[in-house]
């Protein structure tokens, strides 16, 4: 507690980070084995820990370890939400897809636009056909992981996304265009509505829902795919 009173002194921050590093490492391990390298998870968890240190309010009577655990798990969940995907892809494709996914995510952020296949291939040092195959796999397989529980089973990644805009309602005449829209999860319906009925760009939707453009692109693809499957079942 003494250390918290000395914040934002960098030395105190550093000391706290060292003291609670084991906590970050513990949660990083708990989230391992899901297709993300442990190093990345540890880094993500450590970031969560630093955020917890910066935001912790000792006056509120919550033990720091409790607060830090929640923040770290939140950070890890966000990590999986941005990169999350199911594990059914064949192994070699899966490894390439992890690499491509990470490369795309970084480049999209750095460039401020989507990279080209050639740019991704250069950055990841793999063939362009491998990039295309990986992108296809990523588009196809993310749906499952979004519906799957992340971390503890109480919230799914999709629910976390939806929390950005819980009050959204879509108009009836729009739903009549494609009746299967009614059977889509609400946030997928929301994204399709914004994209195709209101004509919003991916960038605008990303801003509104607080998720990355890459994620919006994937959700659009997957929602359209799901919609088609639903329509076929009718």
């Amino acid at each position: 507690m003494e250390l918290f009173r000395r914040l934002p002194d960098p030395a105190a921050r550093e000391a706290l980070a060292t003291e609670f590093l084991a906590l970050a490492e513990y949660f990083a391990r708990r989230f391992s084995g899901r297709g993300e390298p442990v190093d990345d998870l540890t880094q993500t968890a450590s970031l969560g820990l630093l955020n917890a240190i910066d935001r912790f309010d000792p006056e509120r009577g919550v033990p720091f370890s409790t607060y830090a655990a929640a923040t770290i798990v939140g950070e890890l969940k966000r990590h999986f939400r941005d990169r999350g995907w199911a594990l059914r892809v064949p192994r070699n494709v899966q490894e390439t897809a992890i690499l491509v996914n990470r490369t795309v995510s970084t480049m999209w952020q750095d460039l401020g636009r989507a990279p080209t296949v050639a740019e991704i291939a250069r950055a990841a040092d793999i063939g362009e056909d491998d990039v295309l195959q990986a992108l296809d796999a990523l588009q196809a397989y993310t749906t499952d992981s979004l519906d799957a529980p992340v971390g503890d089973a109480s919230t799914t990644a999709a629910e976390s996304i939806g929390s950005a805009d819980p009050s959204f309602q879509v108009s009836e005449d729009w739903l009549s265009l494609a009746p299967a829209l009614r059977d889509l999860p609400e946030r997928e319906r929301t994204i399709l509505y914004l994209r195709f009925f209101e004509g919003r760009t991916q960038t605008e939707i990303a801003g509104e829902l607080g998720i990355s453009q890459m994620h919006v692109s994937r959700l659009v693809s997957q929602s359209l795919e799901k919609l088609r499957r639903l329509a076929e079942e009718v």
Partner: protein
Amino acid sequence: MTNLPTAVSVDVPATAVFVQVLRNVVAGVAARLDLPIDQIEDIRLAVTEAASLLLEQGDATSLHMSIGRDVDTMEVTLTSDGRSDPWPTDRVTTSWPWLVMKGLTDEVRADRAEGAGPSIGFTKGRERVDR
């Protein structure tokens, strides 16, 4: 319609399974044109929607896809050998797949050429980006 020189054309059986082949082909061509991946995905999705409209007619046995392109624009046309007559253009242009294609591309069109089956095409220009 700009009628760009054809770069690639392909014929596949008119079944849902082969739509994946069309998606892969169009994505491969778009990648070679150095389009960013979000636009490649838009094009891939638009092909899927166009194919679904043509397959909906139910009387086609094969689908033809031609891809024309210049430096800045890709023009994709899907034609079925279906005989459905008349090609219900009004119903097509008020459908969900049409709305989606319009959102994903710059221009969408439904045609029926003399002696050919119904066709759906779209044009997608490279969005201006600072490189």
